């Protein structure tokens, strides 16, 4: 009788909570609250979606993924504590964080403990520190920006540039990268406008750009701030070409800024609108499950989980050391490994490369003007 009861209980547990029976723990440390919640929450949904897909099709090496989530509260100190906690709780691989200011701190803990970490951060500094356990899911700003700078210079013939950037860890990374490339390329910076996180009034910033005599503007802000800047720029009749990266031409900014986003262009690493069938299918499924449209953060999280699966299956066991070794210098093609969505390679520092796009906003939607090869 007791045995039967136990057996029934076990069956019930197996039916209702497959995750509880799982063996391999993946930890997602993300910005689920605080200033970065907009980015972190979307990343987390991308991660969840991939985990569910993988578990539905048999898991990794036959083992289900037990996904644990940890909220960094967009606080670097707290993210460090959370990474420590995730490691104490047996994380096989870490996913996150999205904000660079958190990743620079918590990757030290992952390194000390020898746990591979797939981050969504794009700040150049992350792969420049010689940490053998950190891997990107999207290439760093220093890889994307040269492509934008050469477009500004050769494509548009611009010589004088105004720079509008967010004075945060995120914005500073892009700003520094842009400034050094612009310097190499001989571009003159005629206005250097720093803005605050959560700034709402961009009148002074646009006025400054307008009066600077620039030929083109480089905009490196987060989503809402980008939209506010574009709206104000349209209002003041700023006629200059506005260029940026993934964020400036993202669907979110277009939705927020409306017509004001038309004409903005940017260099995009990942985009739900990319002319890649696999990404568009993924974005459609995402929309169906979560009720809003996927952005680059969702795709980063999604790819991250699949990378864990593919690399682990290549080495044939759950071994963190071998995982990190294998991923360095690895290339995964989308044809053989559909979960990575696009062909992708990692180098010895954990930096990655992938095809990218030059995008312009036309009539409220992204239009790919050029596909740029991986570098």
């Amino acid at each position: 009788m007791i045995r039967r009861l136990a057996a029934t209980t076990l069956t019930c547990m197996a039916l209702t909570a497959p995750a509880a029976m799982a063996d391999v723990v993946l930890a997602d440390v993300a910005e689920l609250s605080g200033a970065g919640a907009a980015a972190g929450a979307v990343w987390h949904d991308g991660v969840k979606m991939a985990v569910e897909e993988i578990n539905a099709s048999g898991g990794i090496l036959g083992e289900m993924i037990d996904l644990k989530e940890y909220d960094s509260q967009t606080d670097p100190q707290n993210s460090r504590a959370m990474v420590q906690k995730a490691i104490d709780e047996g994380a096989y691989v870490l996913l996150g964080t999205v904000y660079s200011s958190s990743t620079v701190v918590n990757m030290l803990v992952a390194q000390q403990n020898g746990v591979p970490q797939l981050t969504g951060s794009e700040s150049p500094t992350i792969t420049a520190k010689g940490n053998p356990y950190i891997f990107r899911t999207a290439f760093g700003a220093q890889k994307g920006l040269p492509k934008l700078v050469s477009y500004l210079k050769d494509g548009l013939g611009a010589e004088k540039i105004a720079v509008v950037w967010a004075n945060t860890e995120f914005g500073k990374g892009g700003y520094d990268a842009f400034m050094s490339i612009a310097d190499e390329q001989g571009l003159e910076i005629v206005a250097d406008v720093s803005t605050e996180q959560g700034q709402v009034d961009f009148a002074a910033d646009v006025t400054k750009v307008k009066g600077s005599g620039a030929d083109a503007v480089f905009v490196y802000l987060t989503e809402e701030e980008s939209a506010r800047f574009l709206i104000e720029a349209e209002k003041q009749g700023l006629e200059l070409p506005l260029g940026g990266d993934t964020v400036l031409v993202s669907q979110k900014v277009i939705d927020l800024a409306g017509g004001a986003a038309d004409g903005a262009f940017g260099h995009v690493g990942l985009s739900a609108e990319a002319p890649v069938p696999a990404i568009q299918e993924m974005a459609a499924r995402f929309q169906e499950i979560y009720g809003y449209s996927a952005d680059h953060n969702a795709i980063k999280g999604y790819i991250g989980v699949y990378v864990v699966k593919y690399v682990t299956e290549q080495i044939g066991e759950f071994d963190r050391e071998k995982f990190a070794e294998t991923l360095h210098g690895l290339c995964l093609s989308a044809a053989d490994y559909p979960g990575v969505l696009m062909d992708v390679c990692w180098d010895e520092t954990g930096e990655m490369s992938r095809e990218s796009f030059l995008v312009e906003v036309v009539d409220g939607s992204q239009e790919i003007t050029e596909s740029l090869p991986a570098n």
Partner: protein
Amino acid sequence: MSEFIQLIVSGLSTGSIYALAAVGFTLLWQASQTINFAQGEFVMVPAFFVLVLTVKMGLPVWLAMPLAVILAVLILGALFKRLIVEPMFRHGTIPLVIATIALGILLKEMVKEFYSPLGQPFPSLFPQTVLKIGNASISVPDIANLIIAMGTIFALQLFLSGTRTGRSMQATAQNPDVAQILGVDIKRMVLYTFLINGALAAIASILITPIYLAKFSNGETLGLVAFIAAIVGGFNQIRGALVGGLLLGVIDNLSAAYFSSEYRQALPMLLLIVIILVRPQGLLGTAEGRTV
């Protein structure tokens, strides 16, 4: 010159919104010694009332906006007073400060969790037509914000000094004991103040959100600025809060353009410190007003 006009007009437009929030802030302080650290969130939330009513429930915008004001008056006014301020009246200032800090977190988290962590576009009451004055671009919403905000504050001023209820409210704020002896229903007067604050917050929210976009974290900066505007202008005067708000809007733009964009937030802070040292009652405040 046109650059200067541009900065001044934009600053006044933004500043008029700060003023609305700052006036409400001042009213609450006068009536009940409530230092409302959730004031920024009070301005953030009504925009989401509108969004819930239009996007989720399909109501037309012209109906949703007045409904949102009513909801704000009921929830951010009456309910706030009834559930949080009233039970803590006798505990003094500090517990109430803590409770409003917690309330700010609560409102922010609720919007984020139950609506969206992402910014949302918001319908505008006015056409986005741009008028040119020289080289300066002034949009219709800029002017409308300024006129509506100033109009609201002057109407409030008239109400307070020109009607019986308004004068009773002022009496309650200045000296509740005497007011009570004179037969003023001070409980009711304090309630009115909270209702007015809810309405002011909702108006500010509807005016500002088309430009600022609706986002759960919008209250953080706004609350701080309203707070500073109220102190700079004079904590015991409504017109002080008005002047403080407009001043901060203009200073923010001028300092970003001519002083340093990296230190644009510093100037209001320095102004605050200087005012406290030189003229602690605020620019327009009166010294004999109640001590803060």
